[in-house]
């Protein structure tokens, strides 16, 4: 059963078509990867799904419910969360504060201006669980700005995960992470709970093929091929796109 | 009615000459310079000293005011402003407000707090009477001088290589640098030139706007309105905004004198709500 569907999703910036008629279904619990050459519109699709951009046309359904008109914070409440290709972190907060903040919002305490952060025991408990899962416990009281890049990248995912999403979008989670810090990150991604549906954008084919159970290829804003990893890997059209061969077929 | 239009045009064109430097530097460096009016004041006082005290002819006083303030502007840019470009807007605001305060107090100390008048040659006093409309000679001079300046500016910007380099830098600073344009130098020259124009405007406008040490504070909001409403992507926008503002202000003060500048502020806020990047800005201004 599809948890997230898009129907004819399109986005134009002036005359430029960033996404055209994207109709996509993401199965519940799937590990779904979205790949494609530069400028194919992958990040645009995530921006549309998460509510950062408003589509020019088309609809987005979560569990069959139309969420096209909702703001990004409303979509988070319904169980969608995302990470960003370029870190979008709270540099002056500590990782713990940032995680606890996401928790508090989830528990509906966001307008509580009288009690302490973490006053509710569950916030502290779950925050502890998350800093542990994302290997942030040893740096949880440091300012985010001074963390090593790999830790920041982990926090990027931790913040999304702290929203307890049913659908999680990861936008190039491994980009820019130095080799030495890479393993921890990849292991964490691989260990995400199975009941969380993941949509992954990634250029690193090692990561894509070791992680995904379904792959969609986007070219020039349009869905090009959609299938199981081995099908996609064998598909001559996909090879052509990636290797720059003629597309006469 | 036509007199209002005439006076408003003179006022508006004056505002344009005063503010256009600010608009270009804001567009180029995304730098909020609230102290722009201080250069205008410097030009005004420079003319007062030259013309009234030393006895330099008025016609020579104006270009000298331009040169002096351009020099002052260039100097400040190289020594002070250059440290603040990369800072946050809050820092820029604090820094330039600090400069305004200093210039106000320093001018008060050196020149006294009373209003100053530039001695204008007799030939420029009085009015022409054209079709029954009284046109002040001095205001006519302002329109002519500012008109010529506007044309010259437009020509420099559109026809010279410096102009195209400047526009290229405003369009895309990073790529302009990568293609060999020394953006820092282009900016320095532009800043000095814009300060010079403000100085010239201050000299010309002392008669109409009044010249006292609080000048930079009093007119700060007007310059900012010209820039925010006119946008920063060229000089046409600020020019039209200046004319609108000039005519609107003169008309407002004539028809609803008790409300003062209320109308102008209300219009500004309305414009900024509808078009946060200015009335004449192109679609994707920064």
């Amino acid at each position, binding site marked *: 059963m599809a948890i997230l569907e898009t129907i004819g999703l399109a986005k134009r910036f002036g005359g430029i078509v960033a996404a055209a008629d994207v109709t996509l279904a993401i199965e519940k619990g799937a590990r779904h990867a979205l790949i494609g050459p*530069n400028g194919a519109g992958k990040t645009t699709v995530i921006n549309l799904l998460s509510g950062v951009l408003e589509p020019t046309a088309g609809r987005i359904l979560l569990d069959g419910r139309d969420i096209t008109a909702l703001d990004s914070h409303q979509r988070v409440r319904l169980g969608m969360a995302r990470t960003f290709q*370029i870190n979008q972190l709270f540099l002056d907060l500590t990782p713990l504060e940032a995680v606890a903040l996401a928790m508090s919002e989830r528990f509906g305490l966001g307008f509580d201006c009288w009690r302490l952060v973490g006053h509710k025991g569950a916030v502290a408990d779950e925050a502890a669980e998350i800093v542990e899962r994302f290997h942030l416990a040893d740096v949880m009281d440091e300012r985010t700005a001074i963390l090593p890049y790999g830790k920041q990248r982990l926090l990027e995912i931790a913040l999304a995960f702290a929203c307890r999403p049913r659908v999680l979008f990861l936008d190039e989670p491994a980009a820019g992470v130095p080799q030495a810090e890479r393993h921890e990150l990849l292991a964490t991604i691989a260990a995400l709970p199975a009941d969380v549906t993941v949509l992954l954008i990634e*250029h690193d084919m090692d990561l894509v093929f070791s992680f995904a159970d379904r792959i969609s290829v986007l070219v020039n804003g349009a869905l090009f091929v959609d299938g199981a990893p081995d099908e996609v890997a064998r598909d001559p059209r996909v*090879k052509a796109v*990636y290797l720059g061969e003629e597309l006469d077929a | 009615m036509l007199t209002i239009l005439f006076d408003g045009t003179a006022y508006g064109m004056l505002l344009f000459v005063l503010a256009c430097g600010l608009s270009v530097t804001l567009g180029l460096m995304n730098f909020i310079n609230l102290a722009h009016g201080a250069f205008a004041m410097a030009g005004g006082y420079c003319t007062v000293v030259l013309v009234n005290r030393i006895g330099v002819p008025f016609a020579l006083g104006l270009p000298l005011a331009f040169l002096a303030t351009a020099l002052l502007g260039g100097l400040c840019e190289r020594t002070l402003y250059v440290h603040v470009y990369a800072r946050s807007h809050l820092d820029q605001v604090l820094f330039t407000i600090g400069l305004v305060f200093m210039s106000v107090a320093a001018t008060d100390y050196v020149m006294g707090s009373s209003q100053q008048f530039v001695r204008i040659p007799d030939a420029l006093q009085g009015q022409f009477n054209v079709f029954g409309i009284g046109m002040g000679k001095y205001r006519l001079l302002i329109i002519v001088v500012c008109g010529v300046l506007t044309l010259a500016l437009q020509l420099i910007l559109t026809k010279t290589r410096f102009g195209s380099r400047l*526009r290229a830098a405003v369009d895309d600073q990073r790529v302009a640098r*990568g293609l060999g344009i020394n953006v820092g130098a282009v900016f320095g020259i532009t800043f000095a030139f814009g300060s010079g124009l403000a100085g010239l405007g201050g000299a010309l406008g002392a008669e109409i706007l009044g010249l006292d040490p609080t000048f930079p504070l009093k007119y700060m909001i007007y310059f900012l309105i010209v820039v925010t409403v006119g946008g920063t992507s060229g000089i046409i926008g600020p020019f039209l905004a200046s004319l609108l503002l000039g005519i609107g202000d003169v008309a407002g003060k004539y028809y609803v004198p008790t409300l003062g500048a209320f109308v102008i502020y209300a219009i500004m806020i309305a414009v900024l709500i509808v078009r946060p990047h200015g009335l004449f800005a192109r679609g994707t201004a920064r």
Partner: protein
Amino acid sequence: MPELLAIEQLSAGYGDAVVLAGVSLSLNEGEALALLGRNGMGKTTLINSIVGVTRYFGGKIALDGADITALRPDQRAHVGVGWVPQERNIFRSLSVHENLTAVARPGPWTTDKVYALFPRLAERRQNLGSQLSGGEQQMLAVGRALVLNPRVMLLDEPLEGLAPILVEELLAALRRVIRDEGTSAIVVEQNAKKILGVADRAIILERGAIVHAADSAALAADRAALERHLGVTDSGPRRGARARP
């Protein structure tokens, strides 16, 4: 052939992210190098670092034997780095002609010669940059780098997003510039097959490091290497992440 561009242990990135970690490469006078690799592997960062618009972390760049590491981007352009940026970045409020004259430097490449190379641009010389089609923008971006009369051209995905007919037109022009005029160049491209016909040598970048270097002709024939480094198939032994059980 004397060495024109020498890069030693260059590390660079954006903000805190180190995208390139100690890349070395050299380019000889009159040589054209194709820079291949999947997206996000540091190709554009390498180009931008030679131009000087990234954050520098370490290493050395020398042009004609002179160290240019400490030069500002505009100074690098003056000593001979000609840049065709990835997004083309045409100055939109300048006309086609002004886009060329604003940056032109004296040398064999004049605006007239650019117009001869791209007759379409001559037709549209008075149009604003914002009014050009994608293909015309790309031609202008190439022309704009040519009138700098650079020692080395850096072209960042010049064929990206162009219609097939325009790809052919642009490739023909690149061939003229590189093959006939002997201009030294580094060309970043996704379209490996196409660009290998223009370049002498090719290198493949993966995660900010060079993983494969070969003659163009040899690489074009080496289907396995192309697939491994550029295709979508899983490459050899898996590193890092494990599949879910």
